């Protein structure tokens, strides 16, 4: 039994070997065929492997270089914008970081917008400005009323030395719209210190009129007695020479002019007007010439003081008398961090003298012959405070104003002196838009009735 088992085992092993051989021969043959044929796409040859490896190394190096570049650009400040650079030229924007590229693009757009805006009519050498006003007045003894006015200012810079300035006032009063030519002046810069102007210009001797009368500049709804619509002309028709001379840290301003002389009112339905000067004497009745000037001194930027004088003959040619108008002005403006605000103090006083004249010599008008001492004077002092340095956004736009103004003409046909105390409260919507409220306490002597007033005004400068 033992002997037969090995034989059987040997036969079995041999059979299995043969069977396995037969089984593996086709597989080996197949494998041999595969090794000798081209590889399928799922497999990478050595050549391809080496090629891919080389490409990978190159890409890795390129990526490292890009990373370094980005890091360097991010750490550096954004590139300065190039004025006037066209968008198409901004190829660098692609390579720059997003923030810098956005900023540069924004700057270019702004520049282009400005350039386009400047091509609009009236924006290169011509400028249209002005101011508008709407107001309400309730004065005791009079009917309350609303009023409105619009002043258009035309500026034309013809050359670097030649400027034309015109101002038209449109005002609604007495149920009709009136139009006044306030300014029509051509100015030529002769040199750094001299400018000559011809035409109709604001009266240089009247500081308030030249610098403060615009409603968005004037801090109260109405204008001071005597100084405005009183003893000094608001404008002159003639020629002026003006300028400024820097003297170290100080400045000396000057203006001198020749113009049509004012007229002398010798006849009027309103007796109080007798002896006053007619500053709208555009036809120059009487044929006289007024000569005047103003000198201002600015010792420090916050302070300005000045003096002006105008002298002329007035009245009919054969009975002309002398008229001398004088004005002294003071202006103080201080932006004070200590007081947390802007303080202004302004004052101006005016004197008017008209020589001896016999009014209504024949008595035809019913009040003559009349002579009187035709000296008048008046002016104002004003202070204001606006807390511009405080943090509250509303309070910093509020401004308080106090003004005292006075007009002395008791011994003239007017027959009374007048003084007023005015308290005002302003709210500035923008630097050139303001809402004003004011209450005026009026006091007249000579038996005239006091006329307190409540005033409101909205004014916009543009």
């Amino acid at each position, binding site marked *: 039994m033992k002997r037969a088992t090995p034989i059987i085992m040997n036969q079995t092993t041999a059979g299995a070997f043969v069977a396995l051989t037969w089984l593996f021969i086709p597989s080996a043959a197949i494998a041999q065929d595969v090794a000798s044929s081209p590889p399928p796409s799922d497999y990478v040859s050595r050549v391809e492997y080496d090629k891919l490896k080389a490409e990978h190394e190159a890409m890795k190096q390129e990526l490292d270089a890009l990373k370094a570049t980005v890091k360097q650009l991010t750490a550096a400040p954004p590139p300065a914008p190039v004025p006037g650079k066209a968008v198409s030229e901004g190829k660098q924007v692609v390579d720059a970081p997003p923030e810098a590229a956005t900023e540069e693009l924004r700057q270019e757009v702004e520049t282009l917008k400005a350039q386009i805006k400047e091509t609009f009519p009236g924006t290169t050498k011509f400028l249209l400005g002005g101011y508008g006003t709407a107001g309400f007045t309730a004065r005791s003894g009079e009917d309350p009323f609303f009023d409105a006015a619009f002043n258009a200012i035309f500026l034309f810079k013809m050359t*670097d030395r030649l400027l034309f300035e015109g101002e038209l006032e449109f005002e609604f009063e007495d149920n009709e719209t009136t139009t006044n030519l306030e300014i029509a002046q051509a100015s030529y810069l002769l040199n750094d210190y001299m400018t000559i102007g011809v035409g109709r210009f604001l009266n240089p001797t009247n500081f308030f009129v030249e610098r403060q009368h615009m409603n968005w500049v004037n801090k109260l709804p109405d204008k001071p007695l005597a100084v405005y619509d009183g003893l000094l002309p608001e404008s002159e028709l003639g020629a002026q020479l003006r300028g400024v001379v820097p003297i170290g840290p100080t400045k000396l301003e000057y203006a001198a002019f020749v113009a049509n002389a004012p007229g002398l009112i010798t006849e009027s339905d309103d007796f109080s007007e007798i002896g006053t000067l007619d500053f709208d004497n555009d036809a120059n009745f009487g044929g006289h010439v007024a000569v005047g000037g103003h000198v201002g001194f600015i010792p420090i930027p916050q302070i300005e003081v000045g003096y002006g004088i105008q002298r002329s003959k007035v009245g009919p040619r054969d009975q002309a008398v002398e008229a001398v108008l004088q004005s002294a002005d003071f202006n103080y403006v201080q932006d004070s961090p200590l007081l947390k605000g802007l303080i202004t103090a302004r004052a101006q006083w005016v004197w008017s003298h008209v020589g001896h004249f016999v009014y209504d010599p024949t008595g035809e008008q019913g009040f003559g012959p009349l002579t009187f001492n035709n000296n008048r004077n008046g002016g104002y002092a004003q202070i204001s405070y606006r807390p511009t340095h405080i943090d509250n956004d509303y309070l910093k736009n509020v401004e308080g104003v106090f003004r005292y103004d006075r007009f002395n003409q008791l011994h003239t046909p007017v027959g009374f002196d007048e003084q007023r105390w005015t308290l005002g409260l302003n709210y500035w919507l923008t630097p050139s838009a303001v809402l004003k409220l004011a209450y005026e306490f009026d006091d007249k002597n000579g038996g005239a009735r006091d006329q307190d007033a409540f005033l409101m005004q909205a004014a916009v400068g543009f």
Partner: protein
Amino acid sequence: MKAIGVRICKWIGLPGATILISCVALMWLIGCGTNKQSGEVAAGTTGKSGAQLWAENCIRCHNIRSPGSLSPAQWEVAMMHMRVRANLTPEEHKKILEFLKAGGGG
């Protein structure tokens, strides 16, 4: 010459004549001696910046307006107007204009 002076004094009065004659003579002499192109900086400059001069001069009469409220071209015209009206020196005019134009355009 004396007769002319007397006639002028008689015509416009001594104060007026003094102002007129002295101003005209002084300005003409100074102006002729330093006749520059408009906008050039005169001698004796203050050394202040445009922003400082803008704040000092404009506020003397009215609230200061933002540089962006006018375009650079418009500021050119407005500043020439203010040079005449507010008696700005050439230096002040030049520096303030540069400041306003740099901040303008809106």
